[in-house]
C-alpha cells in the first residue's frame, strides 16, 4: 500500500464529489492509501492571488504547514484538482525561490502558530501518482471490463501541464499521461489539438460569451474526432464542459451531446465497480449512450482503416508524433 497525504480542495468535496468518490472507490484496486490533511482550507483558486499577494500565499501556506505536520512515511501531498495542485505547487516553489516571500509567509503563519519550510513536501497531481507510482502494468492487471471501442477524448485543461514548476510532465503541448492511462483501460484514445486548451475557468461568471466560445471550442475539438466521451482531471473543467454544455448549445445553436467524466470514474468502470459507487449520475449530460458501448463489438466496416499503402497511392509520406521511448 502506497500512502499519500491528500488535499481534496473545495470542489472535490461538493461540486466534484463524483471525482472524490470514484478516487476513493478505486483506491484498493491501485493499492493506495490517502490521509486527508486535517482541517485544510481553500487554496484560493484564481481569486485570492488577484486581490492580495502575501495573504494568498499565506492561505496556501497554512495547508502546506498542516500537511507537513502529518508527514509520516510519506511527504507527498496529492491534489486531484489541477488548480489546487498548481496553487500548492507554486507557493512552495516561490517560497523556495524568493527568500523575501518565504519569510513573509512564515511570519504570517507564525501568527497562527504554524511554520512551513519550503521544499518539505512533494506536491503532485493525482494523475501523476497513478501513472508513475501505480504504473500502467498494475492498472492493466486490474481491468476486468475493458473499455473496448469506447472513443475517449482525454482532456487535460491547463493547470496540470502548465506551468509545471517541478517539471513533472514531459511536454505541456503534447501530454500523453492521461492518454496512456486510458489506453491501459482498453479504450480507444483520440489525439486532438484542443486537449490542452483552457475551459475558461471562472470566465462563465464574468463574460459568458468569452467563456462559452472557449467551451464550445473544446466540445467541437473532441466531437470533430468522433469522441464518445471526454475525460477530465479537474473539477472546474468538468463543471464547465458538462454543466454549461446546454448553454453553449443555446448560445451557438449547436447540438453537442458529449458526456464529461472523470478519469477515475473510467478507471472504476474498467475495474468492475458500478456506476453509482463512482458518482456517475451527477452529470448534466448523461453518459448513458457512451457507457452502453463498453464491451460491444463494432461492425467491420467501421473498424480502423488498413494501413498498407496501395500501389498507385500518390500521397506523400506523413511524419508521426514520437512514441514514448523516442527522445526528440
Amino acid at each position: 500500500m502506497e500512502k499519500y497525504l491528500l488535499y481534496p480542495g473545495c470542489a472535490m468535496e461538493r461540486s466534484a464529489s463524483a471525482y472524490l468518490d470514484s478516487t476513493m472507490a478505486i483506491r484498493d484496486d491501485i493499492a493506495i492509501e490517502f490521509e486527508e490533511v486535517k482541517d485544510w482550507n481553500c487554496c484560493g483558486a484564481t481569486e485570492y492571488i488577484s486581490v492580495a499577494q502575501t495573504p494568498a500565499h499565506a492561505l496556501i501556506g497554512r495547508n502546506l504547514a498542516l500537511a507537513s505536520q502529518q508527514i509520516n512515511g510519506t511527504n507527498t501531498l496529492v491534489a486531484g484538482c489541477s488548480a489546487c495542485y498548481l496553487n500548492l505547487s507554486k507557493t512552495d516553489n516561490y517560497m523556495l525561490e524568493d527568500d523575501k516571500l518565504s519569510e513573509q509567509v512564515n511570519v504570517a503563519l507564525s501568527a497562527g502558530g504554524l511554520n512551513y519550510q519550503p521544499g518539505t513536501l512533494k506536491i503532485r497531481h493525482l494523475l501523476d501518482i497513478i501513472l508513475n507510482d501505480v504504473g500502467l502494468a498494475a492498472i492493466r492487471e486490474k481491468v476486468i471490463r475493458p473499455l473496448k471501442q469506447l472513443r475517449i477524448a482525454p482532456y487535460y485543461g491547463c493547470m496540470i501541464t502548465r506551468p509545471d514548476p517541478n517539471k513533472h510532465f514531459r511536454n505541456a503541448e503534447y501530454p500523453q499521461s492521461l492518454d496512456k492511462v486510458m489506453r491501459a483501460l482498453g479504450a480507444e484514445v483520440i489525439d486532438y489539438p484542443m486537449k490542452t486548451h483552457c475551459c475558461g475557468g471562472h470566465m462563465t461568471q464574468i463574460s459568458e460569451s468569452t467563456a462559452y466560445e472557449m467551451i464550445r471550442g473544446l466540445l467541437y475539438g473532441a466531437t470533430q474526432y468522433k469522441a464518445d466521451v471526454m475525460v477530465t482531471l479537474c473539477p472546474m473543467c468538468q463543471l464547465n464542459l458538462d454543466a454549461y454544455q446546454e448553454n453553449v448549445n443555446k448560445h451557438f445553436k449547436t447540438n453537442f451531446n458529449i458526456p464529461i467524466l472523470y478519469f477515475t470514474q473510467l478507471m472504476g468502470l474498467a475495474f468492475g465497480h458500478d456506476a453509482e459507487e463512482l458518482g456517475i449520475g451527477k452529470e448534466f449530460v448523461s453518459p448513458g449512450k457512451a457507457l452502453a458501448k463498453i464491451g460491444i463489438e463494432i461492425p467491420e466496416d467501421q473498424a480502423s482503416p488498413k494501413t498498407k499503402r496501395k500501389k498507385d497511392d500518390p500521397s506523400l509520406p506523413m511524419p508521426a508524433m514520437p512514441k514514448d521511448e523516442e527522445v526528440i
Partner: protein
Amino acid sequence: MSAAPKSEKERVGVYVCHCGTNIAGIVDVEDVALWAKKELGDDGVVISRDYKFMCSSLGQELIEHDIEIEGLTRVVVAACSPHLHEATFRGACDRAGLNPYLCEMVSIREQVSWVTTDKVKATAKAKAMVASGVERVIHNEPLDRMYVPVHPDTLVVGGGIAGIQATLEISNSGNKVYLVEREPSIGGHMAQFDKTFPTLDCAACILTPRMVDVGNQPNVELYTWSEVERVDGYVGNFTVTIRKKARYIVEADCTGCGICWEKCPKKVIDDVFEAGLGYRKAVYTPFAQAVPKYPVIDTETCIYFQNGKCRACEKFCPTDAIDFNQEDEFITVTVGNIILATGYDTFDARRIPQYGYGRLANVFTSIEFERMCNAAGPTDGEIVMRDGVTKPKSVGIVHCVGSRDNRYNSYCSVICCMSSLKFAHVVKERTDAEVYEFYIDMRTAYKDYDEFYQRVLEEGTHFIRGKVAEITDAARQPGEEGKLIIQAEDTLISRQRRIPVDMVILSTALEPRPDSKEVGHKFGISCSANGWFIEKHPKLDPVATMTEGIFIAGAVQGPKDIPTSVAQGAAAAARVLCHIGQEQIELEPVRASVNADKCSGCRICNDLCPFNAILFHEDLMVTEINQALCQGCGTCVAACPAGAITGSGFTNNQIMAQIEGMLMFSESNGMTRVAEPVAA
C-alpha cells in the same frame, strides 16, 4: 620540494602596464612598479617601470632599450593575458638580442583588474603576481624554437558546399586532399534545395559543377559512405584512420547504370535526402547527380540482409558489381591539417506540437518543402498537399520555429527569413495561392537580401508580424472548416487573428549534428553550449580552432548562408595552404624530457602520452621522450612518481618558484616580505 638556488643573480626588468584605465583604474600601477623595485631588488629586479600601453611600439622599445643598455637578462611584463601579447613582448626581447623565452607575462588585467572593483585587494594581488613572475623568470632557461614539418596532404571532413570549396582550393593548388563524407554522395544540404536566395539560382545547377570537379580532380581522394574513425598526432602530422563502410558494390565494376535500384523490390521512405517526403529503394544513390555514382545497399531495409531472400540486384547487375560479402575497410592516412565542415541538422518540428507537425497532415517543414519544390523531388516540383494531388489555395509560412526561443534554441538561425521569403516567392510563381507569412523580425542583412524582400513585397504576399501561437484544425467559424487555422497576434494592429490556410510551411531552426560532441572529442576540439564547434576567436579567427592544425568551415561553426559557408571553406583552405607553403610550423618549445638517472623504469608514463611520444628502452630500463612528437602537455611530468620528468619552459623549479613568489608577501602586512625564496 623547493626551488633550487641560483648561483648568480639575474638582471630582471619589470614593466607594469596601465592599459589605459583598464588596469590603472583599479590597480595602483605606479605603486606596484615602485614596490617591485624596492621589495624584489634583492631577487634581481634592477629596472621597474610603469607605462600607459606596454604593447605600443614605444612600450616595446622601452624593453628593447633596457635590454641593450641596462643589460637585462630577464623580463617580466605585468599586463593583459598572455593570449594577447605574449608574442609581442617575446618579439621585442628577440629583437634586442634576448632569448624570447626569458620573458614572462603576468596577467594583472584578466586575473586582477577585470575581476574585482576592490582597489586595495587588486593592488595587493598585482604585487603578488609580479613577485611570482619575477621568481619564476629567474629560473627560465633560454629555449630554441621548435619546428615541425607539415605534411602536405589535407583531410577535409564533410562534403557539403563548405567542404567542397575547401577541397577544390587546396587540391587545385597541387596538394592532395582526402575528402571524407558520411553519406553516399557529396553535396550536403545544398543538394536538397530547389532554389537559392537571393539570386534564385537552381541549387543543383551551381553545386553539381563543383561536385563534378571534386570527382574529377586527381589530387582528391574521395571517400564517401565513410567516417573518420580515429585521429592521432598533432599539427603537421596527423594520423587518421578512415572507415570506408561497405557499400556492397564493387566500385571498380559498377557503371552507375541504375538497374539494381530499378529492380529492387524494397521501397522505403527516404528520411535523409528526401527529408521523409519521398521514397528510395534499399539499394540506392541519393540523387541522380550523385558523386560518386556508386549506389549503396542499406542493410537495415535490404531484404537479403534482413532475411536472406531476394538478391534481385545481384541477379540483374550487368557487370556483376554486387558483393554482399564486402566488408568495411580501414584506411590510415597521414595529413598535415584537417578541416571539419560537417554542416548542420534541421530542427525536429514535432518538438512544438502546437504547430501540428506530425499531427496535422498539411503542415510541412522547410526542408520537406524544398524537396517538394525541387524538380527532381517526390512531386516533380509540383506544390501539392499531403495527398499528393491537391493544389493549395492558401499557404502560411511560419518563421522562427525552434529558433530565438529559450525553450528550444535561443539563437537565430540566420537563413530562415530569407528562405521563408524564397518560399513565398516560389508559391506565388507556381500557384495561384494566397501566401501569408508570419514573422517577428525580417532579417535580410546581406548583399541583395533586402532587395529580395522588396521583390517579394511587390508580389503580394501578406506579411503578419506575430510569432505563431498555434496551428489547429478546430474551426471556430464557417470558412475555417477543413482548413488549417494559423492563430497569431498581428502585433502591428494589436489583434489576434486566425488565418485559415490549406498548407503550412514551418521554417525550422538549424541545429548542430547530434554527434557533435563525440566528433569534437575525436578531433580534440570543443563545442559551445549550443553545440556548434568553437572557433579560435569569434571576430578575428572564425575558421581556426584552439587546436593547431584543425580548422572548421561552414555551418558547423554556426548557422550561416551559402556565400558565408563558401567564404569560410576558402578561408580554411588558405590557412592550410599557408601551413603547407611554409613547410614547417613553429611550435612552442615546451616539451618534456626524462632525467635518465632518476628514471626507475616503472613505465607509468608510457601509456599516458596522448601523442605517443614516449619510448621505453628495454636494454637500459629507462624511458625516453621523443622531442619531435612531444607537445608539452605535462601529463607525464605530473605522473612520474620519481619526479624524473621535467618540462622545459615548465620545470619543477619554475613552477615552485612561481608559487613561492605568490606567497612570499603578506597582504595583511601591507605586502611586506614574510618568507625568503629558497634561491636567496
